[in-house]
């Protein structure tokens, strides 16, 4: 079939160790980027862009962030929602304090603040492991949410307690705020998410990623082999929170337009955690697949009956939706506990040796 790699010889060490060693994969990834950058904008309407593509991409970034921590470094975290919130509030404060600086700078910088907060809450990870660590990150979740509600300075003492996306432009085009076209916002989000995925990919395939995986697989062994645990774990917390923070800032500025503190609640943390688990721990592809599955599927299910002309009460759709998505999650976890990414890896292996599986 298509996956025939006959004649693809690897003549250098670099080629052998490439992220995508098979030519079909490289073509495929380029095709995907092309579809996302050219195909989707051509065919998608505003609803698809604003309700499926933009949030899907933002959640992908958040899932990648959590995957660094949970999937690669093996530290369970339930604080993703709050770290996203830190990014959002930081971007809001920075954008208002320095309106002359381009908003994209602040979106990317906002992650630094959540990285710092993440490092603080990552400190206990040296002593506390596994589920117990999950509880300390849960404390981060509740504490930070409390801050968003209580500290008026974060919202510039807004009487409603919410933050709004400020109006900013890039090269004369509004990219945030209500005037920004969905397509413009989509391109910005797409560029940021692809760029950060690329950076992360380089991180996890290099020395840093390897130390994370050593810590995950057996931290005592890693320590004996010369990995300094605290810096390795804290770096994982920092990078993870950074990506979550940028995702949170994008969530307010490119998707929702305004957010109240409850938008960064514990349910958001769980939503991202499910994406990582369903997609596949320790896999970037898994983060993409997981976000698509957990975010896009319910939206499609919600609006599909109305589009094909079936009249169902809106509440019934919502109940059916929860049931179908829940059933699918159980189904996928039974079929492949290692997530959608592993499911794909197995499929690919079968395709590569097809039609002679032995």
């Amino acid at each position: 079939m298509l996956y025939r790699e006959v004649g693809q010889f690897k003549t250098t060490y670099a080629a052998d160790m490439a992220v995508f060693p098979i030519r079909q994969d490289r073509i495929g990834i380029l095709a995907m980027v092309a579809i996302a950058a050219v195909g989707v904008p051509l065919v998608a309407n505003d609803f698809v862009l604003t309700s499926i593509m933009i949030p899907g991409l933002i959640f992908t970034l958040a899932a990648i962030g959590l995957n660094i921590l949970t999937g690669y470094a093996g530290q369970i975290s339930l604080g993703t929602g709050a770290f996203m919130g830190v990014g959002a509030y930081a971007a809001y404060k920075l954008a208002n304090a320095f309106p002359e600086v381009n908003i994209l700078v602040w979106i990317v910088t906002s992650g630094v603040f959540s990285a710092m907060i993440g490092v603080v809450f990552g400190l206990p990870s040296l002593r506390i492991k596994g589920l117990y660590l999950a509880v300390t990150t849960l404390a981060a979740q509740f504490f930070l949410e409390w801050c968003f509600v209580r500290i008026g300075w974060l919202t510039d003492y807004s009487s409603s307690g919410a933050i709004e996306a400020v109006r900013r432009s890039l090269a004369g085009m509004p990219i945030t705020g209500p005037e920004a076209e969905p397509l413009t916002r989509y391109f910005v989000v797409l560029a940021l998410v692809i760029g950060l995925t690329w950076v992360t990919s380089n991180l996890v395939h290099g020395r840093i990623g390897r130390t994370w995986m050593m810590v995950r697989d057996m931290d005592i062994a890693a320590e004996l082999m010369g990995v300094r645990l605290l810096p390795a774990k804290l770096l994982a917390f920092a990078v993870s929170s950074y990506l979550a923070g940028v995702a949170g800032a994008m969530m307010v500025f490119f998707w929702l337009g305004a957010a109240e503190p409850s938008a960064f609640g514990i349910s958001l943390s769980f939503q991202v955690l499910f994406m990582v688990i369903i997609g596949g721990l320790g896999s970037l592809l898994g983060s993409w697949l997981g976000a698509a599955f957990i975010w896009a599927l319910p939206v499609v299910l919600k609006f599909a009956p109305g589009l094909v002309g079936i009249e169902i009460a809106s509440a019934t759709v919502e109940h059916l939706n929860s049931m179908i998505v829940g059933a699918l999650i159980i189904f996928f976890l039974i079929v492949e506990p290692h997530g959608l990414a592993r499911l794909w890896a197995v499929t690919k292996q079968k395709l590569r040796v097809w039609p002679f599986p032995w």
Partner: protein
Amino acid sequence: MFKPMALAFSVASTLAVVLPAVPAQAEDSLYVPLLTYRTGPYAGSGIGIADGMHDYLEMLNQRDGGIGGVKIAIEECETGYNSQKGVECYEATKGKGALVYNPWSTGITLQLIPKAGVDKIPVLSMAYGLSAAADGKTFPWVFNPPMTYWDGASVAVKYIGGKEGGLAKLKGKTIGFIYLDAPYGKEPIPLLEDLAKEYGFKLMKYPVPGDKMQDQSSQWLNVQSDSPDWMIMWGWGAMNPTAVKEAAKIGYPMDHFIGVWFSGGDDDAKAGGAGAKGFLTLNFNGTGAGYPALADIKKYVVAKGLSQVKGDDRVGENNYNHGVYNSMLIAEAIRNAQKIAGKKMVDAADVRAGLETLNIDAARIEAMGLKDFMAPMKVTCDDHSGENSVYVQQWDGAKWTKVSDWIEPMKDKIRPMLVADAKAYADKNAPWPARTEACGGR
């Protein structure tokens, strides 16, 4: 096959499903999307409202053939009181020619306020949302009639003052404020603090976090030890019945406990059992089903099985009647818009003008079959809430009874605060677009 084929497939199938979307609405109907919530933690309040909104509009369809002879196309979209889903519903329905949005959540309202002026679709947040939106000069596309939370809070204080023998007697008293710790519950705080300073009473605040609505024992323990003279509540969803239950449990005098209009659901008060007798709430619509319009709903909608209400007994509950009031505002705005525009098929900009010139007098109220259900109300270009009057009702153990006259809010106090707050909002969201819409026109 390529490696990312699975993603490609998911994206492609998503597109395939959604693209043939957005079926053009029938050309000859008025499209009114209803953002409702019949699921989630706030469903207890949301279901009654959703039914009331849907049934009143459906009744107009069945009885009068719509508004001005044009049928209303009603579509419900489930938000679950969740801001993410609310925006999703907005994006999914706005392309179909939506005339007006009723977010029914302060969080969703805040997200729609900046969009309203850009998409040119009015937002009608009936007695909720951003209080400052009452300033029509700054927010031409947002409406919050019949009054804002600040007006409501001022009426609660006025009522308390009346019972204590004049506002001057409030000096040295303690008023407790228990509220949902969300934008909604925090809205009235600036006004209450201001009034506390002016009249010399002490304001004690008891926030209830959104995820702990069903466990208020610690807040009420504090209430017990502080023993404030009066309690005011800004609650919603599961918070209301819990608060009433807890208040009854600690033996707080229920006739000194005033809830906002959204704390006055029948189920909210019933939860307290016999102990809830005497519980007070503010209200702006009548309760019970003893109005000709509600009788028509039973006859044309419920009896025909067109409503999701099972049986008649839910019709006339307070939340249901809130929904009816909301739909009445929508229908009157559309009717008004048809008059102004001189055509039957109005668009969202016409409806905005219709909302802005809304003037429902006693004669019109009687013609709608809602005599005694509501007070005459008015919206103007400057004042998008109208600061209309509210009354206080009391739970007698089985139903609500009206125990006060229609009380006017402290307009002279609130109006400058609203304008200042609107300005602060516009400054923060600079460059906030200046109003270009003519008063009462497009």
